[in-house]
C-alpha cells in the first residue's frame, strides 16, 4: 500500500475517534439537556463519518472497489441526525426539562 494512503487512513481514523470521544465528553459534562444535545448529534456524526471514510479508503486501496454500504451508512446518519435531534428537543420542551440559569431566551410551550 502506498505510504501516503496509509498516513491519510491513520489520520482519518484518529480524527474520527477523537470526535467520537469529544462528543461523548460533551454529553457527560455539559450542564443541561439542550447543551448536551449539541455534542452527540454533531461531533459523533462527524466522528463516524471520518471512520467510515477511512474504511472506504482502506478497502479501495486493497483493490476491493468502493464500498456502497459505507456510503449508505454515512448518508443515512447525516439524514437522520437532525430529525432525531429535533424530536428529542420537542420531547424535552414538552416535559419541561430544566435549563441552566445562564440560558437566555425561553423554550416554547408544547
Amino acid at each position, binding site marked *: 500500500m502506498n505510504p501516503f494512503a496509509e498516513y491519510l487512513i491513520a489520520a482519518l481514523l484518529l480524527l474520527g475517534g*477523537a*470526535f467520537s470521544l*469529544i462528543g461523548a*465528553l*460533551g454529553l457527560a*459534562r*455539559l*450542564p*443541561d439537556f*439542550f*447543551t448536551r*444535545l*449539541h*455534542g452527540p*448529534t*454533531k*461531533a459523533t*456524526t*462527524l466522528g463516524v463519518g471520518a471512520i467510515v471514510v477511512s474504511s472506504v479508503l482502506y478497502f479501495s486501496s486493497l483493490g476491493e472497489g468502493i464500498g*456502497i454500504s459505507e*456510503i*449508505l451508512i454515512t448518508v443515512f446518519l*447525516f*439524514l437522520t*441526525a*437532525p*430529525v432525531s*435531534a*429535533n424530536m428529542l*428537543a*420537542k420531547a424535552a*420542551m414538552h416535559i419541561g426539562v430544566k*435549563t*441552566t440559569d*445562564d*440560558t*437566555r*431566551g*425561553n*423554550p*416554547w410551550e*408544547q
Partner: protein
Amino acid sequence: MLDRLGFPQPWLSALLFVTWQFLSEGVSGASIVMGLVLAMVIPQITHGFWPERPAFVKAWKMPAYLLIVLKDIVAASFSVARLILSPRPPRPVFVCYPLQLEHPLAISILASTISLTPGTVSADVSDDQTLLLIHALDAESDQEIIDAIHQRYEKRLMEMFQ
C-alpha cells in the same frame, strides 16, 4: 403520463430504485424487478404524507449548497470541540429566527442544515411557519446567529425555491 403509470412522485421513485440497486448484491434481473416494485408501491402507500409536489426551481444549485454545508460542519465541529474541552461554561441561548422561506420543504431543509452544523439545533417551527426556534450552544448575541444563518443558508435556499 407518469401519474397514470403509478409514479406520483417520480423523484422519490427514482431515489428508491437506485438505493435498492445499491443495497442488493450487484445489479441483476431480480434486483431491477424488485426495485421497480418498490419504486411503485412505496410512493403509493406514503402518498398522504406528500401533500404537494416539491417546487424545486433550481435543483442544480443543490450540490454547491451541500458542499458549503459540509465545509461548515467540519469547521464548526472544531469550534464545538474546543468549547467542550475548555473549562469555560458555554453561553446557551434560545433564538426565535424569523423565517423568510415559505415552502415547507425549503423550511425543513433549512432546519436540518441548522441542526447538522454544530453549535445550533433547530428545536421547533411555529404553527404558521413564520418562526423557527433555535437553541445555540455558545453565542454572544441573538442577532449574530440570525445574520449568520440568513447570509449563509437561507439566501441560497430562497434562490433555489423562488
